[in-house]
């Protein structure tokens, strides 16, 4: 996983999502630059997860666009309108607030599924049992991801029987196995103990240093402060504040609405 031109940020413009009478996401502009960790914070029901889903394609925005930022040699890639699996193949990877693992597969197989489905292979050739041309590459990536997250010893363990913290790591591994350009994490520190949180922070910093664009939704103030380069405070569907995590958490608005000290 070397740095280089393959990493590109995510650009969100004028995103809007309504449910019945409630505007969950209201005209949001947000940049998730490559090579940095961006945090999205806010009280429950502020629309963070909805925004998240609109980027991954699990939910359809009513207006606005989501694009992979252009680069000198490559034009922007419009993600809006693509189904979620196509966005995944285009280079967006994500994890879930409620852990979603393949409980019937081992840790290594979970990660392998992330690696081997990033390009669509004709289903018929799979049915006829033809060898997969990417087999060697898939193996290499799987091994590298296991190594990086310290999961090698658990490779052959059934993913369904792991403790929560380890499950979160496997989920992250599956996302990384697709060699994404942008990584979206929904409450990655929830259910982790302090040791694992420190470990996760290190991994995320290293990934950002590699060039990945990382967006995370998180409640843990210490974790956000430790890992994020920039934080956005979202309230009632709108992004009201942005800055370094320290600035945002120190603001009167955050203290009143989010942290609960006056």
């Amino acid at each position: 996983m070397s740095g280089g031109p393959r990493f590109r940020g995510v650009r969100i413009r004028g995103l809007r999502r309504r449910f019945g009478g409630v505007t969950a996401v209201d005209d949001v502009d947000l940049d998730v630059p490559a090579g940095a960790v961006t945090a999205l914070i806010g009280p429950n029901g502020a629309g963070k997860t909805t925004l998240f889903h609109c980027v991954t394609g699990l939910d359809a925005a009513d207006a606005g666009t989501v694009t992979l930022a252009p680069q000198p040699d490559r034009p922007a890639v419009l993600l809006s309108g693509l189904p979620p699996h196509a966005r995944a193949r285009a280079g967006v990877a994500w994890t879930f607030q409620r852990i979603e693992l393949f409980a019937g597969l081992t840790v290594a197989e979970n990660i392998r599924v992330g690696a081997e489905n990033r390009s669509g292979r004709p289903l018929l050739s799979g049915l006829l049992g033809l060898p997969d041309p990417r087999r060697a590459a898939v193996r290499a990536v799987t091994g590298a991801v296991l190594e990086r997250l310290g999961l090698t010893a658990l490779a052959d363990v059934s993913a369904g029987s792991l403790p929560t913290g380890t499950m979160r790591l496997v989920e992250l591994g599956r996302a990384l196995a697709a060699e994404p350009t942008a990584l979206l994490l929904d409450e990655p520190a929830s259910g982790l103990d302090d040791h694992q949180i420190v470990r996760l922070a290190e991994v995320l910093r290293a990934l950002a240093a590699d060039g990945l664009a990382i967006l995370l939704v998180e409640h843990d103030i210490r974790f956000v402060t430790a890992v994020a380069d920039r934080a956005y405070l979202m309230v009632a569907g709108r992004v009201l504040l942005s800055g370094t995590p320290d600035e945002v958490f120190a603001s009167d608005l955050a203290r009143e609405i989010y942290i609960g000290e006056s």
Partner: protein
Amino acid sequence: MFYAGLALNGLAIGCVAALAAVGLLATYRVTGVFNIAFGSNAVFCAYVMWQCVRVWHLPLAVAALLVLGIVAPGVGLVLERFVYRPLRRSGASGLLVATLGVLVLQLGLVFLLWGGRSYVDAPSLLPAGSVRLPGSLTLPYATIVELCVVALIAVLLTFLLRATRVGLMVRAVVDDRDLASALVPADRLAAGGWAFGSFLAGVAGVLWAPIYHLDPYSLTLTVLETMGVAVLARLTSLPIAVVAALAIGIGQTELTAVHPAARWQGLVDAFHTNLFVLVLFAALMVVPRLGIRDSGAAGGGLHRQGARRTSRVDHISRLPLGALSLVLALPLFFDPADLRASLAVPALAVVFVSLVVATGYAGQISLGQAGYAGLGALFMAKLAGAGVPWLLALFLGPLLVVPLGWLTGYPAIHRRGLYLALTTFATAAVVARFVFAQPVFVGALVVSRPRGFTDDHWFYALELACLLLALLLVRSLHTGPMGRALVAMRDSETAAVSAGIDVRRMKVFVFACAAGLAGLGGALTTSAAQAFNPTDFDPVQGLVWFAAVAVWGVDSALGAVVGAAALVAVDVGTVSGVSSLLIGIGAVLLGRFPGGIGAAVRRAGDWAVRPVERPLTRRLSPAGRAVARAAAARARERPVS
């Protein structure tokens, strides 16, 4: 044109359907379970009623009191205590299989006790005669009584659930039995709900039996078809269900007055006799979502727990595979009559393997494989009749089913659990009524085997070759990248999508594969019998097949082959009903033995070849051991404060 006389006749039909639909909905509202076995329950009660009156010569009133007051609620109580209560924490799919199991079990019981005979002399509780209306129209008293019963149930239940404290408690139990059990007498309320639901089934059965013939299959199917009305009501609105049922009943009789050009008459006739099937199918296509909590992985409750060995070589499976091949070759040395009976085994096995593909591998509950099997047989026969060489037709016919599977797989994309099960069942029912039952399609079929295969030995060998081909084909759906992707999709669709798997395309693809395999099985079945027999592909038969495969382990192709052999053997060796009874019992118990017989055998195999050095003091999973080691290491590093 609208004919008042016909409308009144239609009202009578609509009433019966409304009774079924209201019964289904009421059961659903007070138990939280969509009871597919409602029909078989009704049939069972109707047979008991017949027994009481016609054999034991009990007075009608006494018999009615016995059946509706004791037998019907009693059946509900027994089912709640021994089937549904132990399953209260399993998902929608687990309950679905349990209700299917009850259906198969009750049908088996009816076959065993009454030989599956139909009777035309079912005792009627309703008064004879009719009211004269102006314009020389008549309205039977029976219809009036039925209308009153339906209205009474609908009004009473709505009032009970909406406006009383008991109603609120019942709704709480249906919503979350665990939480409710701390607040209200949940077990008693649930038992009461099932007794009431079963009572309604009894009422429906006793009122219907004299109108239709008392017949196990057709009556059960009739109830299943009225599920369309329940779907139209989104399983919630009792008034909509009543109105829809009456409207369809009237529509059905009004259609009899439509006389188009002669060559279309057959089609119109098919429409009006099967309007309920069409409504079921259309309703499932149109109604976007049922008002049910249908959560969890699609095949949840059917699959065994724990990791599957997709990427590693499965040493244990070699042994049964070898033994199985030997056993399957045995019939070649049987005497001619037994060999003839054995011909059904590989054909059925291929159909069962198709079920394993759809439901076991892809997690898509498919109750419609009987339809695809029949179509495969039909296409093969048509092609052979058109001069295509028989051996070519045998494969080309099923291949033609693949696009149909593709097409019907589309509705499966967004449906799951019960909703998907109903959709696939409706597909099979439509095919059965509009194709298999129409002489236009099934007349003059060539199904005799050609020279070379008239000898049963050769044909049996050909069947085995087809079965082997099918097993080889599904192997790649079980192992390698494809197998992993399918397990991923089954475990979590959203996560599979996030990994870049095109879940929709994958589902439709697997559905099409399964349809093709079922078609091959159907073609073999018909060739074995040398006759196209629509009852081989009856939709209710499809339910029995599904239950059988679930019992043998829904994700075990070998289990499916053994299951097919066992089913045929039991059917040949015993009286009718025994096989259904056994399958039903197995399916009902499935909630306690996830993964079925296949998984149990595999667990036993794992245990037999377990490494000797494994510490037996505290049995932990591999994960548990790894974690325990890590925890011990950490505990050494940092002493507890």
